[in-house]
């Protein structure tokens, strides 16, 4: 009996953790104990099978995935797709708790086995959501000790965005960098960019970063829109709980549990895009989603979901002239016609440039009588670039993305659930890194085995990356030019150009005319874009590995991770709630020398970490939490990151939060081991000592690029590369006011970064002696990661207001600001607008039988200067309007939605060198979308 009592007690505690808010007072525990006692005695009684239906009281539609639990006991179930449920209870009478996000929680006392008909009343209050990620335990969003944003499946359902990822763009303080239709990188609090290294994305607890390519692939792999349960976003530093990387935020996407959400769901979305596009004709957009989940018996459930997107991609079409200096530069005036050295931002192949005075000198030597004339043309460098090809001519316009995931869930006990899940994603997309990369037939798979208990979890997963036929568009196009006509040599492109230029000048034509004549002459034989010859050469180059003078990545880097967490609160709650966890991570770099310095074999990188969190309620109003995490990477010294938070309850539903957070990141796998030659012959290398030794930095020293350019070479020595870290303070308030009709969330923060990881350009003499530095031909430029000695400071604030109007109308407004403190230019790549604003008016159900829904969102952001490895440039202010209108057909469980992203079709870019995004107009049909 005693054993039985204990068991029941623990189950109850589990229940209390998951379905309600953490119960802590001793009074509560006594109650629980009594309830448990009753429960265990009742085990002797005859079980009764209850069944019923839950309907929305406002429109009589069935509500699915509603939690039906037994008050004061363990166990429970969920409604199915038709709102029906069945539940075996130990005895009668029993009190059922019926709850679901967006509805008022009800209690129902069942006295007999008659069918139960629940009229579920939509909740009319804001801020009732429960979040998990802020403290790694469930808590009301109003009581989160740090700023957190949550996007529920209901919010996704009513969002105007064509893809759920786009919903993130309307969250306060979020910047979304769009490298492609399906490649979007969210960031918060600055330092944005494609594949942001300072922002973690976790999907069902798994790090979503491609281990070799170093970008989060949430838009490529991950869960189907129909399988998204919730998205939680922690802006700002969050390493203390989630480990290295989350310096600027952590995004957690959770999928639906098949026990809870089952049935068949389908969503078919067809749209049109590229209307009035300068470069592309209008073309269709297809997005098909499918999800099926089923519970078999009481213990087994499975789900499968797919998400397929096919469209012609947004096109990067910035053809302005770019002044490239290593990987820094800026947009300058001039066109292909006016500037012989033109290098268009999204024009590739024209990065190859040379001073044709070398050709002039050859002609002058042959024809000395022309020497004075040639000399008069050679007063300054005559830099000429090869003729490039536009992005649309080299990058496959078809963006295809297939995402599939499946999971088997098995309840080992009523509290412990085992699951085996697989997530695969494959397709074509485009990424902006140091160059533009066409990710062609990229595939990434993640496999996970997880044991989940309310008090603990154990998770093991692996990420298997295969770059497929991905290639560097810039490098490939440059090499294509070398194939059809080599740049150098006596008969090379530049020789032909220089000679034709001089020949033209000798007829008296102007400089500009001579240049265009010379280009025409040197371009004889240039394969026309799209021609069979072009395709043949291009395919030949892009399918040759980078290590063999091609453009292909052979990246098959993998990640293995094991982690676990235990909530010790059941033992320690008299003193504090304590949570401990640990993980071990292993990267296996495998690019066959095409990306990493791994031509001799794979490179392993081991990392482990452990964390502990203690929280304690002090009096009624104050809750303090302390967390700390220690991580060690084999290539770097260990790091400890603490976090302290305080939540002060002013009144019920009104809380002030204060937090001190730290975060850090180990240099990415690329910042450790990359070994790649990019545009202009610059070698990007990783920061590990082995690479510096390989390139003999100690015996043949390197000099800072700036000093070499100033003709006063200064030796640059590198300290051991250290992890980058940030300390951040945040003060915030979240509360319901005005009769709970207005939800206010406001925060302000300050961040201070140390050992900021930057790339330094250094020069080594190819001749081995410093004298060689004076000749550009003898300079080998390296880009080496190092820690900036400059402290980088940021600060900002955000304000969110949600106002509930009568009849379900909700007005929302959020405004956020992020500012980078004064630092020397070129260090930070902050890349965030100082101000941004979102305004929304929405109603998920109104009108005839509450069948109508709509959502209009206006977004504005201020201009800012974007600095990226690929391109720098001013991003003008952006204004967009997204809107959707939907109509429900409850009889057939369907909804039809008309929507538009960028309704005004006003093309914009949100990062330099990235594509121009226009309007996407769609109509979607959803069956059983919940």
């Amino acid at each position, binding site marked *: 009996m005693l054993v039985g009592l204990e068991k029941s007690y623990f189950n109850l505690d589990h229940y209390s953790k998951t379905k309600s808010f953490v119960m802590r007072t001793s009074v509560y525990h006594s109650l629980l104990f009594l309830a448990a006692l009753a429960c265990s005695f009742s085990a002797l009684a005859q079980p009764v099978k209850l069944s019923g239906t839950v309907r929305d009281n406002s429109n009589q539609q069935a509500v699915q995935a509603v939690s039906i639990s037994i008050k004061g006991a363990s166990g429970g179930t969920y409604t199915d797709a038709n709102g029906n449920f069945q539940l075996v209870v130990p005895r009668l009478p029993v009190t059922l708790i019926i709850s679901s996000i967006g509805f008022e929680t009800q209690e129902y006392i069942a006295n007999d086995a008659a069918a139960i008909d629940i009229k579920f009343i939509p909740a009319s209050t804001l801020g009732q959501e429960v979040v998990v990620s802020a403290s790694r335990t469930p808590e009301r969003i109003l009581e989160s000790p740090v700023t957190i944003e949550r996007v529920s499946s209901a919010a996704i359902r009513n969002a105007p965005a064509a893809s759920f990822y786009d919903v993130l763009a309307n969250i306060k303080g979020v910047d979304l960098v769009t490298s492609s239709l399906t490649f979007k990188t969210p960031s918060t609090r600055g330092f944005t960019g494609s594949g942001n290294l300072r922002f973690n994305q976790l999907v069902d607890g798994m790090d979503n970063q491609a281990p070799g390519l170093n970008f989060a692939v949430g838009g490529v792999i991950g869960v189907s829109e129909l399988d998204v349960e919730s998205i939680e976003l922690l802006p700002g530093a969050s390493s203390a709980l989630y480990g290295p990387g989350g310096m600027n935020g952590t995004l957690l996407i959770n999928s639906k549990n098949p026990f809870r959400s089952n049935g068949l769901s389908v969503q078919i979305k067809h749209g049109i895009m590229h209307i009035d596009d300068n470069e592309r004709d209008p073309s269709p957009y297809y997005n098909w989603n499918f999800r099926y989940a089923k519970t078999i018996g009481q213990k087994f459930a499975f789900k499968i979901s797919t998400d397929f997107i096919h469209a012609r991609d947004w096109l990067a079409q910035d053809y302005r002239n770019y002044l490239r200096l290593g990987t820094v530069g800026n947009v300058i005036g001039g066109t292909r016609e006016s500037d012989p050295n033109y290098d268009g931002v999204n024009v590739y192949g024209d990065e190859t440039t040379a001073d044709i005075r070398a050709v002039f000198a050859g002609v002058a030597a042959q024809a000395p*009588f022309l020497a004075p004339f040639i000399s008069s043309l050679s007063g300054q460098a005559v830099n000429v670039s090869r003729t490039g090809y536009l992005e649309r001519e080299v990058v496959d316009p078809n963006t295809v993305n297939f995402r599939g995931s499946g999971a088997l869930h098995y309840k080992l006990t009523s509290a412990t659930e085992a699951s085996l899940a697989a997530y695969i994603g494959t397709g074509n997309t485009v990424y902006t890194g140091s160059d533009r990369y066409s990710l062609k037939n990229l595939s990434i798979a993640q496999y996970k085995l997880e044991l989940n208990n309310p008090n603990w979890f154990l998770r093991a997963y692996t990420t298997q990356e295969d770059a497929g036929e991905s290639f560097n568009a810039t490098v490939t196009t440059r090499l294509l030019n070398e194939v059809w006509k080599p740049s150098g040599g006596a008969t090379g492109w530049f020789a032909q150009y220089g000679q034709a230029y001089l020949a033209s000048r000798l007829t008296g034509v102007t400089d500009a005319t001579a240049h265009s004549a010379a280009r025409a002459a040197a371009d004889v034989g240039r394969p026309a874009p799209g021609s069979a010859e072009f395709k043949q050469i291009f395919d030949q180059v892009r399918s040759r590995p980078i290590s063999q003078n091609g453009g292909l990545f052979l990246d098959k880097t993998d990640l293995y991770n094991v982690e676990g967490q235990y909530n010790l609160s059941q033992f320690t709650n008299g003193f504090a709630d304590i949570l401990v966890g640990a993980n071990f991570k292993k990267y296996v770099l495998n690019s066959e020398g095409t990306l990493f310095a791994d031509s001799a074999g794979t490179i392993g990188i081991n990392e482990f970490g452990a964390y502990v969190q203690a929280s304690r309620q002090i009096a009624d109003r104050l809750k303090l939490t302390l967390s700390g995490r220690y991580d060690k990477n084999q290539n770097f010294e260990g790091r400890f990151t603490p976090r302290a938070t305080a939540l002060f309850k002013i009144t019920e539903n009104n809380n002030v939060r204060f937090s001190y957070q730290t975060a850090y990141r180990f240099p990415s796998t690329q910042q450790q081991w990359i070994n790649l030659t990019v545009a202009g012959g610059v070698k990007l290398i990783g920061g590990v000592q082995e690479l510096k030794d390989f390139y003999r930095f100690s015996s043949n020293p390197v000099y800072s690029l700036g000093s070499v350019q100033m003709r006063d070479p200064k030796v640059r020595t590198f300290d051991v590369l250290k992890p980058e870290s940030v300390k951040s303070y945040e003060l915030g308030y979240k509360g319901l006011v005005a009769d709970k009709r207005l939800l206010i969330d406001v925060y302000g923060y300050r961040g201070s970064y140390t050992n900021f990881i930057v790339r330094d350009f250094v020069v080594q003499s190819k001749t081995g002696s410093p004298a060689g530095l004076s000749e550009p031909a003898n300079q080998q430029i390296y880009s080496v990661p190092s820690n900036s000695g400059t402290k980088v400071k940021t600060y900002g604030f955000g304000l969110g207001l949600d106002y509930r109007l009568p009849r379900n109308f909700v*007005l929302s407004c959020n405004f956020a600001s992020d500012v980078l403190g004064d630092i020397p230019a070129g260090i930070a790549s902050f890349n965030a607008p100082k101000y941004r604003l979102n305004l929304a008016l929405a109603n998920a159900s109104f009108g005839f039988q509450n069948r109508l829904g709509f959502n209009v969102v206006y977004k504005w952001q201020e201009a800012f200067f974007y600095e990226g490895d690929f391109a720098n440039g001013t991003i003008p202010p952006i*204004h967009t309007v997204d809107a959707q209108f939907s109509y429900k057909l409850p009889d057939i469980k369907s909804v039809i939605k008309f929507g538009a992203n960028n309704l005004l079709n006003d093309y914009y870019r949100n990062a330099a060198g990235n594509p121009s995004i226009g309007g996407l107009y769609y109509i979607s049909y959803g069956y059983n979308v919940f």
Partner: protein
Amino acid sequence: MCFKKSIKVIFMQQVKNKSKFFFALLAACAFVLGACNREFEDTPATAALAKPGGSSLGDIVNNDTAYSFFKALVAKAGPLAPALSNTGLELTAFIPNNNSFRAFGVPSVAVVGTNFSQAAAVAITNYAVTPQLLPLEKIPTTFPNLQSPTLLNPTAGTPAFSPFVSLSIFPSKRATAAWVNNIPLVATNIIASNGIVHVPAVLVIPPSATLWSKISTDPDMTYFRAAVIRGDSGQVGTARFDSLLNLPIGPNFTVFVPTNVAFQQILTAQITGALIAQGMSPADAAATATALASTPTVFANPLLARVLTPQTVKGLVVYHILGVRAFSVNLPTTATPVPTLLNSAVPSHPGVVLNASFTGPSVSAATVKGAANATPSNLLINPAPAGTSDQHYLNGVLHKINQVLRPQ
């Protein structure tokens, strides 16, 4: 109306009346903001140099009657004349006016068509134009001049066509005057929309023969010719000066050719001295020397082979050649040493000393002095066609002088 400035105002209002604000703003979004995104901000293009408007070179030739002779010459040249009306070009044209033609002996426009063949007209008109902008300010004052390509390409229309072949013209400038080749410019810096006009005092005729064609045939240069051939003994190809001096395109020389008498004088004196030193009586020595030196074959005389070795004679020859084309007008007005081709073998050699006196833009007297000569040698000034100084050839200019220059 892009919103940047109005944000603050909006937020003030928001506090007062949120609902109104939202609706108003959403409406505004839909209707007002249509064209707000400025995707690619303009960047200032590199400022292109504005071209002067007005008449082209062709307009000047065609419309200004001061150039009607040249207009007639252009007409005679036909389609192969330079495209002076092409405003896409940047040229400098040394266009002779009617007086320049008269100074050359063409009395009237009527005879232009008959005095010049079409080939000559093509050559003269193209030779007058250099494919670059050379305002007077850009014409150098340094010795000797600026070698400029012209539109006259002797390979044009031949199978051996090369765009890098061009006959050069040689503009120069000093304190008081400017010239093209050795011809003074009487007007300069006439600006056209596609170039600049300078007017030479006399019609400028392109050279058509090589230095060697003159040296090898002129009866008063037989000693110099013999000296060149003696110096070339044992050499082949362009190591031979008879080849180099006959190469129409490439070399660029000034050759000071001593007269036969000058050679006879110095040879006689030298041989006489040598014979006396060997014990011959002065009278016999003088008679023998005179006989030996009376013919250019003296350079090939076996008796003198040990004295007039090929190397010695070649040294003497190259001491008479400059590696630049110096017309008499390019010579300095104060005695100035200038390196000769001898300096390529003996870099420290002082070279020759050049000096010229001017009357107006024309040279009245000019000298060149060898290092071992007691007195300067005179350039025999007669720049008229087929004269003795400023004889212009494809590969250089030739001045006759009255002494042999002695390097040591």
